[in-house]
């Protein structure tokens, strides 16, 4: 399983799917075009600053609101390698796994990691390292069944393999 490393973008509680990708863009079907509006209503500079591999760290209930799969999709397409949060809204959580966007629940990481820190994640062990401060955190492990979907890089591949 791969690892991730990048610069942190930090957000608070209840980042909803409407600010991740506003509905005014939902008729767009091209993922790259959609991704140019990622996080637009909460952080208009995000798309200009994000680089491949970067990491989003947020507080509780990340991805609340709509079922739009466009939300994890634009985050993934924008280049984000992992979202770490205290907790995720359940549809976002499911969608992220189904489309192969790595996510990790970790309260301590969300509390201690700061915007701009360089963070690396080992997905096999769930260890999150803040390379700027040297601190490490242990993320919540996925149940075996979900890990299989993640290892298959999404639900469709997982079902095709069965």
């Amino acid at each position, binding site marked *: 399983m791969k690892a991730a490393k990048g610069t942190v973008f930090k957000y608070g509680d209840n980042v*909803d799917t409407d600010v991740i990708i506003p509905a005014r863009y939902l*008729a767009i079907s091209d993922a790259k075009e959609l991704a140019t509006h990622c996080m637009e*209503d909460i952080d208009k500079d995000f798309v200009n600053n994000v680089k491949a591999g970067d990491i989003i760290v947020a507080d509780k209930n990340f991805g609340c609101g*709509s079922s739009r*799969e466009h939300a994890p999709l634009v985050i993934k397409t924008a280049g984000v390698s992992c979202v770490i949060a205290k907790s995720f809204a359940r549809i976002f959580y499911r969608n992220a796994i189904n*489309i192969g966007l790595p996510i990790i629940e970790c309260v301590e990481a969300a509390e201690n990691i700061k915007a701009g820190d360089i963070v690396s994640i080992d997905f096999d062990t769930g260890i999150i390292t803040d390379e700027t401060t040297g601190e490490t955190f242990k993320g919540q492990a996925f149940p075996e069944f979900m890990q299989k979907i993640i290892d298959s890089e999404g639900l469709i591949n997982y079902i095709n393999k069965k």
Partner: protein
Amino acid sequence: MSKMTMSQKILASHAGLSEVSAGQLIEADLDLVLGNDITSPVAIREMTKFKSDSVFDKDKIALVPDHFVPNKDIKSAENCKCVREFAKKNNITNYFEVGQMGIEHALLPESGLTLPGNVIIGADSHTCTYGALGAFSTGIGSTDMAAGMATGKAWFKVPSAIKFNIVGKPSKWVSGKDVILHIIGMIGVDGALYKSMEFVGEGIKNLSMDDRFTIANMAIEAGGKNGIFPVDEIAIEYLKEHAPGKEYKIFEADPDAEYDEEYTIDLSALKSTVAFPHLPENTHTFDEIQDTKIDQVVIGSCTNGRLNDLRCAAEILSGRHVADGMRCIIIPGTQKIYLQAMQEGLLKTFIEAGAIVSTPTCGPCLGGYMGILASGERCVSTTNRNFVGRMGAIDSEIYLASPAVAAASAVTGKISEPSELGL
């Protein structure tokens, strides 16, 4: 003896298991898979990645273009065309074209497609609405929808539950919207995260089906996986009218079912409740609301676009006029509701009051069209979310409220309850 909740019993029965417990991962058979014009095109594209792209059962899929319909622009027209062609190719029984369509969560129960004891997934977060009829129904994304359409199955982590014991009778202008806003204000927007919200108790007899749809609809706004009511005489009457001759199975929670938390909600103590920007948990009652001038009122959506909602608004708007400079937009949830509102004279009341009436659409609720807000504008809306930028400009504001509060506010031009009009 098993100790299962209503939701757990339905899931067990669809997973071929005699018993399930919270946290268990199961695969359940699906009675209905639904999607709309935003989520279905993504699912339809995903379907092509399966070894077989045929659907599991053409009668158990519902496709309802409702978000940007009638099409607001070329891109939304292309999305609807994609859904239409897929429905035709797969001979989908329950595809609803403009003219038959309505807002999905008002339309499908009305069409007898959501039954007690069903397991339903929908690529729309408000799919939890059908719990009002004793179904386990929950929102999922497009990839899950694709997998559901192809296989007729979905995986679930069996949820634990919060029990809401409903007692008492609400006063005249207090409705289902006030009940659910009160609950969300109490437990927060993640208060029921990953959990079922089970609404029981002697007080539910004082809640109409339309009230229950509103309450179950907004379970997601508390983070809930599903909201569910027991099936009582009121629900059975509704099913006789809307699903005549259809068979269904009623599930009840075990007497010693285990709940993470229990709350008692006394309907007689509830007041008109408004959720201020920018979260549904930011609730206030009128004893703490200052004069707040507004620019627009929206009465409609999968939350509050049903007949009782329109009747309530008409009762308040009858013989009155919307305030100068105010836009009041009323959106019946389905064609049937629209027609009945016409026959009852409600549309005449709305138009004479200076409101406009739209064909069914999700439209302004998610900032699609038909009532987008400009910078700094405020709207009292019977919809379900008041997130930043949800209905338009990122510095516009949405105040979520009942149809009664929305209609009264349209007349006064500020956030108001009906008593301010002497009602």
